[in-house]
Structure formats: structure tokens, C-alpha cells
């Protein structure tokens, strides 16, 4: 057992942004569901369509504002997010090839991973791309009434496809966090992770911490 039981992973500001993003995303999906899946139409009418439309716009503001809030309260975390996601390594690719076995309870022999693993990097890139598409098409739907008619018409399917893909990816993300690696969840609660977990799942990151002198080898072995 390691002497230092927990390693600090995320700062408070970053955790706040994560939950702002996650909750607004989920609420955006739920408030738009009746337009998306016709069988939810009665739910729409029961709650009052206009209420859901207003809520969709409210959470859209939260969703759009989150990264900008992050600029102030979680600059370091966002910087890391961008720089990691944009640097794919050989190990990341190998991780992506071998990891799927773990989804169904296998224990593949995975290469050591950095702060974010190959799968997380893929999710981050996907979410960043979808953020741009959802915000751009959403703003056209909301405020673009004087834009060319065909652009407004195209915003509808584009927004809907991005919403669906985003939801599927989010479910996958939640399953991995709660079902496959429940130890990681604490990182988004108090910002720490079990040292053993970090050594096993983010070996290169732990090496970094040691190299930077933030923890010593002794403490974690």
C-alpha cells in the first residue's frame, strides 16, 4: 500500500466547470427531447412546450459560458485539456486498440498513460468539436431569423445530429466513469484519486509528478 493514499488531480475550479458542462448538456438534451423523439410529444405538452424552450435557451447560455468561466477559474485545467487532447502519442493509439476488452470486464495489458488516456483524449476532442457545432447551429436556430432561409433550414438537422452524437458519447463517458473505473469518479468530487489507481491507469502522469518533484517515489510505492 502506498504511503500517500491519494494524489491531487483536479482543482476545484475545473471540477465546477466539469459539472456545469455536464449538467447543462444533459438538461439541453432533455429539454429538446420531445422535438427529437416524436413519442415524447405528450411529455412536451404536459410540461408546456414554451417552458421547455425557455429552459433549453437558459441551459444553452450556461453551456456556452462554461469554457469562458473556465478561463478565469480553471485556466490551468483547460490548458492541460487542450494541450493533452491535441497531442496523440503511439501509446494512445495502442491504448485505443486494446482498451475495448476492458469494457466487457477483460483486463488487457495496456501501455502506460499520461494525465488523459487515449480514450479520454478522443472524448475530449469529440466534445470540443460538438460544442462548436451545437453552439453555432443552436445560435442560428435561436437568433438567426434574418439569415438566409436555407441556412436556417440546415441548422435543424445539423443541430439534431450533433445533439444525438453528443448524448451517445456522454453516456459512454458516464459508463466508463461509474461502471468501469469507479475509482476515477472521486477526481470529479474532491479532486483526488487513489494513488494505486493513478499508478495503474496514468503511469506517465505519475512519472511526471515525480520528475517535477511534487511527490516522491517512496510515498507512492
Amino acid at each position, binding site marked *: 500500500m502506498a504511503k500517500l493514499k491519494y494524489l491531487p488531480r483536479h482543482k476545484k475550479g475545473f471540477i465546477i466547470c466539469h459539472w456545469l458542462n455536464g449538467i447543462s448538456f444533459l438538461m439541453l438534451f432533455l429539454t429538446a427531447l420531445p*422535438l427529437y423523439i416524436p413519442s415524447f410529444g405528450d411529455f412536451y*405538452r404536459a410540461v408546456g412546450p414554451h417552458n421547455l*424552450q425557455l429552459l433549453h435557451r437558459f441551459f444553452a447560455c450556461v453551456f456556452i459560458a462554461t469554457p469562458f468561466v473556465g478561463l478565469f477559474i480553471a485556466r490551468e485545467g483547460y490548458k492541460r485539456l487542450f494541450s493533452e487532447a491535441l497531442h496523440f502519442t503511439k501509446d494512445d493509439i495502442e491504448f485505443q486498440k486494446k482498451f475495448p476488452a476492458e469494457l466487457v470486464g477483460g483486463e488487457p495489458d495496456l501501455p502506460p498513460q499520461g494525465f488523459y488516456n487515449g480514450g479520454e483524449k478522443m472524448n475530449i476532442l469529440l466534445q470540443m468539436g460538438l460544442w462548436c457545432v451545437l453552439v453555432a447551429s443552436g445560435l442560428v436556430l435561436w437568433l438567426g431569423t434574418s439569415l438566409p*432561409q436555407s441556412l436556417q*433550414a*440546415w441548422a435543424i438537422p*445539423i443541430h439534431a445530429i450533433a445533439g444525438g452524437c453528443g448524448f451517445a458519447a456522454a453516456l*459512454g463517458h458516464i459508463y466508463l466513469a461509474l461502471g468501469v473505473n469507479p475509482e476515477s469518479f472521486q477526481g470529479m468530487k474532491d479532486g483526488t484519486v487513489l494513488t494505486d489507481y493513478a499508478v495503474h491507469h496514468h503511469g506517465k502522469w505519475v512519472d511526471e509528478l515525480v520528475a517535477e518533484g511534487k511527490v516522491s517515489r517512496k510515498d507512492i510505492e
Partner: protein
Amino acid sequence: MAQEMAMLHDISRCSGCRACMVACKQWHDLPADMSTPFEGQYQSHADLTPTTYNLIKFNETTDEQGKFRWDIIKYQCMHCGDPACRNGCPENAISKLDSGAVVINEDQCVGCGYCAKNCPYGIPKIDGIAHKSRKCDLCFDRIQEGMVPACAKTCTADAISFGPKAEMEKLAKERLEVVKQSFPNAQLYGVGDNKVGGNHMMYVLTDKPEKFGLPADPATPKSIDMWKDVARPIGQVATFGAVAGIVGMAAIAQFRKSRMDKKHDEKKEG
């Protein structure tokens, strides 16, 4: 089956008296509408509104000789054969009747505004208080009773005609020949097949459609098929697929785990 009907507005005959606007309001019990500001022109409202289904537009223009004139046109729903508004309505609130009228069912409408975004003519307007979409309904209720739409009935200059579609098409062609003698650019609009499936609101225009603020080549947007046939199914498959996939993966993982635990126990016991 009811007969397929159509309305024809002969621009060359229209005097711009706006009696049809008043008749439309009266039949639909719509209040006077001061929502668009007076801009020093003859035209009453800048655009259609949730309580103005029918608008006489006064397009100011100068002809080849530099002489000022108004190109007047009656503007309302074109009652498309393949209506973009209906195709793209997520609540199936819009239907196309046998008479040709495209009608919004108020109870089904949730005011999402997709019909307004999809309509190539920019016709439906969302009522910001009731949160419902509004537009001309071709007075389908009058048609059902064998009457003529209120606007056509009231027209003081015989510029609006209404009747079986084939008859209206014939009349349009006859009128075009006459109008061409004074307006060389005269043409028909919405008569015969086009990319919105033909219209049940047709025109004899004295000039190019652009002069009247009409799209030259209106089309039912392809993006609607994309939304209906691709976006929604993909989204639904992605949503339900992700849920099913997760449940499935969790089940397999659980199964493997319990088998491993069993092996473990057996080893210990043995």
C-alpha cells in the same frame, strides 16, 4: 374527395385597396396590428405577422423609362403541393387537405418555429403570446361549406379569383396573354409544377418575381429529408444504442466477474 382548388391573384388588376386584408382579419377574428412601424410608405406592415395572414405589399420601383411605379402584390401562404412547413413539423401539426389548403392544427402546434425556418417564402409567424404558428389557411372552413375564401370574395377589382385548380390555370394563361401586351416581362408564378410541388396560390405577375420580393426558384429544402431520414434515426439509434450498449457491456462484465470470483472461491476451497 373534395376537389383540388386554387386561388389566382392577377397583379395587373389589383388596385391595392387592401379590402382583402380587412376581410381576412374579419373572417379569422384577428385584431388590428400595430406591431410594425410606419415607414413613410404606402405599405401597411413590413411583413406578415401572427395576426396578419394576408398583406398587400407596395414594392416601390422605377421602370425602364425611369418612371416611378408600385408593384403591388397580395402576399400570404402559397399552399405548396409538397409543403416544407408540414414536412418539417416535428409534431405533425400541419396537414395538406384535399382542397389544396395547408392548415395548422393549433392543438398540436408547440410553437417551435421549424415551419417558419423551413418555408421557402418565410410565411408562418410564431405568436409570441400563445406560442403557436400562424398563417393563411386558405379559408379551408369556408371552402368546405362551398364558399369562396374571404379575400377572394371581397376583392373590389376582380383581381383575386378562386375555383377548381384546372380552371384557375386556364384563366391564368388567358390573362397572361392580355397582360403581356402592356407589360412585356409579365409571367405566371406558381402555375404548374415546381420544386415545392406546385402551388395552390398562383399569380399573374407584371414583372420578374424578384421585383415582388418572391423567390425566383423556391424549393422545399433537402435539409428536411436529412432531418427526417438521417438526423432523427441516427439520433434515436445513437441514444437507444448507447443505452443498450452500456447495459449489455455491464451485463457481460458482471457475468465475467462472477465467473472469476467463482473460480477464485473454488481454488480457495480446493
